[in-house]
């Protein structure tokens, strides 16, 4: 099986900060990306998504070298903390954009959109505008779009950070269900040790633009020898 996401000797300088990432994220698994604020989590994600291009090194996704590929040419779906939906378009259009970026949709596509909404628990929400939804419902809609895109990799930047704790739990459950159904590779940036425990097979800890640790979740949660990590785990 091709490896999920590979950052091969990637180096990048942004202003005064420099980043050096060299890692392999296994395919078909959920990897949590953690670290203090400003450590480079979002930069890591941007490198994978194509919003940053490395100064040197290579980025491979699902076996293909995508180092110089435009974001739209990479086999990834994205979910951010907020603003995942265009506020002036209804859910049908928002999700349809995931299938065709000019909204030219076939009958099958329309069916797929409705099914995806049903799958994330938003049955019949096609005509609803994002402003009329709760925060949790909006994130569900973002998941529905990721579903219809059928991309092997899902990149998420703190997707549940704006939700209250009870909701985070049910959203995590939904994410895991979808992950099991599709077998996709998931990279999730998170601030929350509980989320790492709940969701991830592997965890990555970044500090000052370097990967300090990449281990299975159990080991990650047990480690106490890295001060920055210990601080992160104690919340």
């Amino acid at each position: 099986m091709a490896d999920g996401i590979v950052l091969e000797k990637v180096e990048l300088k942004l202003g005064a900060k420099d980043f050096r990432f060299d890692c392999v994220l296994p395919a078909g698994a959920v990897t949590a990306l953690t670290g203090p604020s400003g450590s480079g989590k979002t930069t890591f994600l941007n490198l994978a998504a194509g919003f940053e291009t490395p100064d040197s090194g290579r980025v491979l996704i699902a076996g293909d070298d995508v180092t110089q590929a435009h974001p739209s040419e990479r086999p990834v779906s994205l979910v951010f903390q907020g603003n995942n939906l265009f506020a002036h378009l209804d859910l049908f259009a928002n999700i349809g954009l995931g299938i065709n970026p000019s909204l030219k949709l076939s009958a099958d596509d329309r069916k797929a959109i409705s099914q995806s909404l049903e799958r994330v628990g938003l049955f019949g929400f096609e005509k609803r505008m994002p402003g009329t939804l709760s925060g949790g419902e909006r994130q569900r809609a973002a998941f529905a779009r990721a579903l219809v895109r059928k991309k092997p990799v899902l990149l998420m930047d703190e997707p549940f950070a704006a939700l209250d704790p009870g909701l985070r739990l049910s959203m995590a459950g939904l994410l895991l269900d979808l992950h099991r159904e599709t077998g996709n590779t998931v990279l999730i940036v998170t601030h929350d040790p509980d989320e790492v425990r709940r969701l991830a097979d592997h965890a990555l800890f970044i500090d000052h633009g370097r990967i300090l640790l990449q281990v299975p979740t159990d080991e990650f949660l047990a480690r106490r020898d890295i001060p920055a990590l210990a601080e992160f785990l104690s919340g």
Partner: protein
Amino acid sequence: MLTRAERRRGIAYGFLSLSGIALFVGIAVAALLSWDAGGASGRLFTAYTWRILQFTLWQAGLSTVLSIVLALPVALALARRPSFPGRIWVIRLMALPMGLPVLIGALGLIGIWGRQGIVNSLLLKLGLEQPVSIYGLSGILLAHVFFNLPLAARLLLAALERQPAEYWLLSSSLGMRPLSVFRLIEWPAARRVIPGIAGLIFMLCATSFTLVLVLGGGPAATTLEVAIYQSLRFDFDPPRAIALSLLQIGITAAILFGIALFPNADDADAVAGRATRRFDGRTIGTRIWDAIAILLATIFLILPFASIALAGLRANLWRLISSAAFLQAAWTSFTIAITAGLLTIFTSLAIISAREAVADMKRPGSGARGFSAVLGGMSSLVLLVPPVVLGTGWFLMLRPFGDVARFAPVLVAIINMLMALPFVMRVLAPAIETHRTRTTRLSASLGISGISKLWRIDLPVLAKPLLTAFSFAMALSLGDLGAVALFGSNDLTTLPWLVYSRLSSYRTNDADGLALILGTICLLLTVLGTAGKREAKHG
């Protein structure tokens, strides 16, 4: 959280400024209404007024459409290219026409598009004979676009830049093409603010005075404001002036009502603020398109400025500055401008503190709340009753008491104050409100009040917005021709009036030199006032 004395004082100041403004505007309108009312009402709908009304609305409508249609590609291009060398200067250039006296802008446009201008000499060389006329409708439209295209572009750009950063990340990740991005993201964002922008520009163009005075003229290209001026100044036909004034008030009231229906177009501090990143428009086609849009707009805006500078430098500046006429006019202008600036500051502070006092009441009665609302509306009264109309009212009022020119400096200063008030309120009110929410409780708990509060707590923070407001009001007054036009004479000459009279007597060389001096002063004031508000650099 105010002390009782502070609250009482606030209410009193507010009441004072309210009655002052109401009296000043009320007397002008009453004078219009009572002066030979019979004659005026018969003149309200003659073929003449009808034609002028039609032209006023027609040129305003065309100017609005042209400004917005041409501004849209410029704003889209600037939004799509969030970081290129010189971008910040293009955006600053777009703020310049607002700070330039309208009369000076008109001179610059004549320099470029006039009979001897570079555009026509270029076209002449190409074999065309004088195809562009700076006078009449085409000139008025050109000038209105020069002043309002950058305004529209800035407001549209702000609306585009207010879109969440995620939109651009998502659109590129989803692979949207430029047309889809326009249809699904950019146009919906622009569409929301276009009605507000259109209303604002229509209002500015429907009440445009100086540009139409200089570039229009003749019954075929005259707006209501200029017609009012002409009927008083040249024909001395007060009933006609009154009829036109009433018509003007009716029109502005209708436009203001229309604007109130739409959301405000506001560029707050969003312009050039956040470092947005865009990943679309990488194709060579869109690059060329954007480059052309930005380049053409830049050239269109920068040429008149260059023309003012070059033509001005050709004049004998030293002789002009040391001439008695200039010194006299500068003295008059600065006296009026400083008076108007101070009046604006004190009036807006009075209005703000009164509204604060009402907001601070535990249970403001309907009377207090109404008072506060009226105060807010009062600061925009001049939009309803334009300067020329105010001037006309007072002109008729004071004529029985002798030479109107004697009272004119005071009248002009007060009218300038009213003109600056809506803008100054927009600068000061939010600044003071933020300052109050930050410090009121703390000051109250520490018992700081009176002079020491003013000196230690308020002034250090509010000095900058106050300076912005003052320099804006001063620049507006220094460059204004509208209020002084009715009263201008040998006894009362301001700098813009001097430029205008030199221009009308075909001493263009002098006019160019004076224009350069006046334009520089006004732009310096604007720059001084906004010095604190540096636009964030793009990363």
